[in-house]
């Protein structure tokens, strides 16, 4: 059956797959969000260790989802991969470095003679959770505001600024997208800790922190939403493939089919509900509503950028160099082969859900940490 699918259907399927993985990554950013709480929420070394060990049992999920997201984009949309990574060199390099220092911080922080001391590794975790996510957010913002590049006949990118992607942070829409993701990750991180840790003084502070971070996220969310739905977008003529600017493009996309609108508003309501449960109802399960809500909002963002004849990686410098899911994708044959492989993804996800359940069947306590051989 997959072998008979039309090329354009496969391109749509792969944008959906990439969107799902990308949105899951945004949910799993609760690890990064939790890392930014290290210097404010815990009181004393034991509470800090409790947080790091709670997050440490999930960091690999986030890390490998990032690798999977990159892999899916490389495989399905290699022209995007080559254009964005090869052009916005500094953005991707900085994101990479923030993730390198994250992973080693978990492994080395508690080890004797780790050269730099625990405080340095905690600072690394903070940098990953703040700057790393901020940069990812600004990169997502460029899906709507565009980047300054051109492509030649051989699809080779020429970036028009020496800042190599960092200039995206000068755009307040991109910056707001990044800051919203940072604060949303903090909300998710706090809600995850409430769910995963059994230590009331700490979880009480996490609940309060979730609320404060949620409030901080609102102005940035508002700015992003208002601008997204009113801005001029990068539309594509389906007949000629010509890219042109269209007023209110993303507002049109929102109502072109039910999914993006439902995902966006449904997702936001779920996040709000999760925060309410956590902060005012004393419940521990807010993370699940917040997590699912974040995935839905992520899907809405990716769908708005990629579907309904829209350039998902637009060039503000040379409109016709803009990338769409149709001109940036792999060949029909490769997408077909990859779709067969993707049939395995639900099994991988099911396995992860199983692992999560096994590992989370009991909340983490300070007493348990004292008995552990291995600590982060």
């Amino acid at each position, binding site marked *: 059956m997959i072998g008979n699918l039309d090329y354009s259907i496969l391109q749509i399927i792969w944008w959906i797959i990439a969107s799902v993985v990308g949105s899951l990554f945004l949910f799993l950013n609760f690890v990064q969000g939790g890392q930014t709480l290290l210097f404010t929420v815990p009181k004393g070394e034991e509470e800090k260790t409790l947080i790091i060990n709670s997050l440490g049992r999930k960091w690999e999920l986030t890390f490998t989802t990032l*690798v*999977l997201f990159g892999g899916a984009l490389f495989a399905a949309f290699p022209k995007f991969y080559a254009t964005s990574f090869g052009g916005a060199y500094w953005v991707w390099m900085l994101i990479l470095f923030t993730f390198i220092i994250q992973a080693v911080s978990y492994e080395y922080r508690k080890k004797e003679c780790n050269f730099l001391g625990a405080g340095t590794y905690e600072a690394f975790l903070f940098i990953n959770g703040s700057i790393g996510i901020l940069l990812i957010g600004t990169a997502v913002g460029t899906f709507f505001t565009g980047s300054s590049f051109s492509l030649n006949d051989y699809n080779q990118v020429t970036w028009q600024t020496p800042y190599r992607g960092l200039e995206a942070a000068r755009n307040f829409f991109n910056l707001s997208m990044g800051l919203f993701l940072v604060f949303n990750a903090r909300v998710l991180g706090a809600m995850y800790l409430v769910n995963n840790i059994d230590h009331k003084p700490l979880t009480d502070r996490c609940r309060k922190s979730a609320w404060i971070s949620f409030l901080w996220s609102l102005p940035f969310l508002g700015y992003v939403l208002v601008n997204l739905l009113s801005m001029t977008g990068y539309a594509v003529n389906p007949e000629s493939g010509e890219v042109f600017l269209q007023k209110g493009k993303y507002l049109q996309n929102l109502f072109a089919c039910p999914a993006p609108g439902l995902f966006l508003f449904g997702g936001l309501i779920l996040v709000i509900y999760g925060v309410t449960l956590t902060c005012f109802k004393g419940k521990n399960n807010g993370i699940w509503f917040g997590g699912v809500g974040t995935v839905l909002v992520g899907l809405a963002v990716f769908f708005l950028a990629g579907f309904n004849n829209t350039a998902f990686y637009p060039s503000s410098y040379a409109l016709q160099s803009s990338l769409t899911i149709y001109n940036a994708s792999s060949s029909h044959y490769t997408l077909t082969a*990859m779709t067969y*492989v993707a049939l395995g993804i639900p099994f991988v996800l099911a396995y992860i859900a199983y692992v999560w359940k096994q590992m989370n069947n009991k909340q983490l306590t300070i007493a348990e940490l004292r008995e552990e051989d291995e600590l982060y």
Partner: protein
Amino acid sequence: MDVVLLSRLQFATTTMFHFLFVPLTLGLSVLVAFMETKYVKTGDETYLRMTKFWGKLFLINFAVGVVTGITLEFQFGTNWSRYSAYVGDIFGSLLAIEATTAFFLESTLIGVWIFGWNKISKKAHAIVMWLIAGAGTMSAVWILMANGWMQHPVGFTIRNGRAELVDFAAVVFNKFAILEFFHTVPAAYILSAFFVMGISAYHLLKKQHIDFFTKSFRIALVFGLIFSIFTVITGDMHGVHVNETQPAKLAAMEAHWETTTRAPLHLFAVPDEKNERNSVEIGSIPGLLSFLVRHDFNAEVRGLKDFPKDERPPVLLSFFSFRTMVALGTLFPLLTIIGWFKRNRLVESPGYLKIMLWSIPLPYIAIELGWVLAEVGRQPWIVYGLMKTSDAASPVASSQVLISLIAFILVYSLLGAVGFYLIAKNAKKGPEPAVN
């Protein structure tokens, strides 16, 4: 320095650093899984302590391997964007499959193994380590398939200004990749065996934890013996295939200049690339090169002069990488065979134990040089016969690559220093004392 050279230096630095940790992950996971299985089957607490001790070293090593792997994926885009644009249709899919099926499972299973001691049954816990070992091996399968395609591209056509996949099966069953796998993964097993034997030798020389480290040594010895012989065999098969698919690489690694029948093999030579000859040749054995690569003493072997100068790989580096790798690869079976005869009196063999202790770095050197040969020997091509390395780099400023290269060197130096220091410290510390 130009951007291509800097990008190559950066990729070489990050890949070689990554591959300081990958082989031990591949091999030690199998050894730890075996030890844990022995514990589950026999109930012998020594095997449990072995699992925990070697498992701890495995975990420190694993973390650095995982972290440095993502750098390579990023760099295909950041530093080799023209390559990614041209061959991403094929290469990208292989990396994605690796990320989806193998790397993902391996990394998430690690958490279960670390924190699952009291949460899942003993048997299930041992199975988890076997799954980690299996996922690691699957990861190697896909990565080596991707590299095999760069070495010997198959199953594609040039269409729409790029290489497009037309035969996935041809890529999966690419003989080059299969031989690369059966040479690289067993080499990783040798490295792990020597790692375990070397650390065990350290403690046996100090006469501490004798039962524990004798058992560890013997398990690794059998492992090392089998795979050091296996690697020699697959190395020979690989060499024959390289002659068929990359004759310029074969000629460079043998410093073979003239196309001749009854081609000689030089045990030692100093290639003089400028004058297209060897300035020194020692121990030349007539016909041996013909025999090794064609299994016929009188067969013809193409020399470097058969190829245009700009399509020859660097001869000096290829030759010495290959010679050193082969010399070390010959030493490993010898050391393990000697070990086999000394296996019941290890403590009484301090000389042998000292050799094994100091041999720990040797498989690392052999494996790194193997990669140097594989990659440098493929030059000037990034995809053999299809795309030149000089056409593949991203259009970034050399100053930008220089800055990121310096950043990688600094960060990786710290990572490596802490990683190896922690491994050495924990290795020297020895296992937790027995409960009884």
